[in-house]
């Protein structure tokens, strides 16, 4: 095998001999004309070649993880928060996180028996009618003791996002947000715009909310990432943004 020094010399010589330097004549003026004419250069990217199915799979993975963790953990509160909501990304089909009231297994079995599975929106917005009086919706609850002390006020303090940072060169790029709340932050949603648009939920890793942007396969260029935090009571923070040129380097 070639030793280190010989290899270095061989590479330097071989690459230098084979290099084809360009003629710079007139290039600077041409570039200025393009910029003055409003040309944006590489901000329009065709990173994703048609037929690259792996991208869609990778874009789905974070959501599959979110659903799996929620189901396994039985965290109804988290599911109720997600209930029936659709979060769209330009790079993947919309992902519907089903309401906890949906029994996915029995629903999956119904088509085989000739039934039809309702969508999560139908389940949330329009409860299935029933002819059985025993299944009639319960009457509104009344307070049995009107003299009882009023319940403590619900949480009305919104979370805050203190910081959004972008590590723009790794593959994938790492987007991190620092958020806090008087009770607790339950979700941070990240949206991005620029050479690509989309949104996704961030994952909590060691106290920091994190999202990995697939800069190797998604368009690269100037991107603005905006984080919004929410707490269990549904209070939402104001948006906090950061912008950088995202490019997959190493």
């Amino acid at each position, binding site marked *: 095998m*070639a030793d280190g020094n010989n290899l270095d010399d061989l590479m330097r010589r*071989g690459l230098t001999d084979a290099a*084809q*330097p360009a003629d*710079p004549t007139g290039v600077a003026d041409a570039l200025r004309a393009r*910029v003055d004419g409003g040309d944006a*250069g590489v901000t329009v990217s065709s990173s994703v070649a048609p037929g690259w199915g792996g991208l869609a799979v990778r874009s789905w993975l974070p959501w599959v993880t979110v659903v799996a963790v929620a189901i396994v953990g039985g965290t109804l509160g988290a599911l109720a928060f997600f209930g029936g909501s659709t979060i769209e990304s330009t790079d993947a089909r919309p992902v519907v996180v089903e309401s906890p009231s949906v029994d996915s297994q029995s629903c999956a079995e119904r088509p085989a028996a000739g039934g039809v599975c309702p969508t999560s929106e139908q389940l949330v917005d329009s409860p299935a009618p029933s002819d059985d009086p025993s299944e009639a919706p319960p009457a509104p609850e009344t307070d049995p003791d009107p003299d009882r002390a009023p319940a403590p006020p619900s949480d009305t303090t919104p979370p805050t996002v203190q910081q959004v940072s972008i590590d*723009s060169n790794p593959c994938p790029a790492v987007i991190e947000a620092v958020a806090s709340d008087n009770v607790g932050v339950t979700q941070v949603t990240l949206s991005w715009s620029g050479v690509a648009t989309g949104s996704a939920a961030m994952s909590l890793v060691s106290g920091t909310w994190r999202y990995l942007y697939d800069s190797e396969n998604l368009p690269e260029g100037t991107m603005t990432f905006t984080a919004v935090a929410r707490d269990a009571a549904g209070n939402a923070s104001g948006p906090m943004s950061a912008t950088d040129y995202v*490019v997959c380097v*190493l």
Partner: protein
Amino acid sequence: MSATETTRLQVDLDEFVAREYPKVVAAVGMITGSPRDAEDAVQDAIVGYLANPPQREIRNLAAWITVVASNRVRDVQRSRGAESRALATVGVSDESVDSVVEGLDVDVVKALDQLPLQQRQVCVLHYLLDQSVQTIAEGLGVSEGTVKTQLHRARTTLARLIERGNHRG
């Protein structure tokens, strides 16, 4: 990247083009195996840099442009590959897709072409543009350890490939 620095490049564009541009185009051609796409990609990268400058300070513009432009060519090649596959289904050949290492019939270049893109980028920056590990790391905004790792892997593979080529030759 501050507005001042962008302005500085605009002012120094002539100098950058005169001194760095020929080498950067050669480097991108080497990395991608497609010299004819390299020049367009480098110009696109420079225009993109001027039109939408990165917020992060770019200390090594030649390295940064090299990487952005070679990624750009990779995207074009992927698109062509898809088009070529589509054409192949109807019996039309596209010779341009096979023009990887076009005009670069050198053993080390053939070996280089077998490396992953990021290792190729580091190798060309190091061997052709003669940049140190520290300079590459600063220019690309990554740690020196990352560059060393990529370079080490590349050298190991290159040594094996070149050795194998010598035995066959």
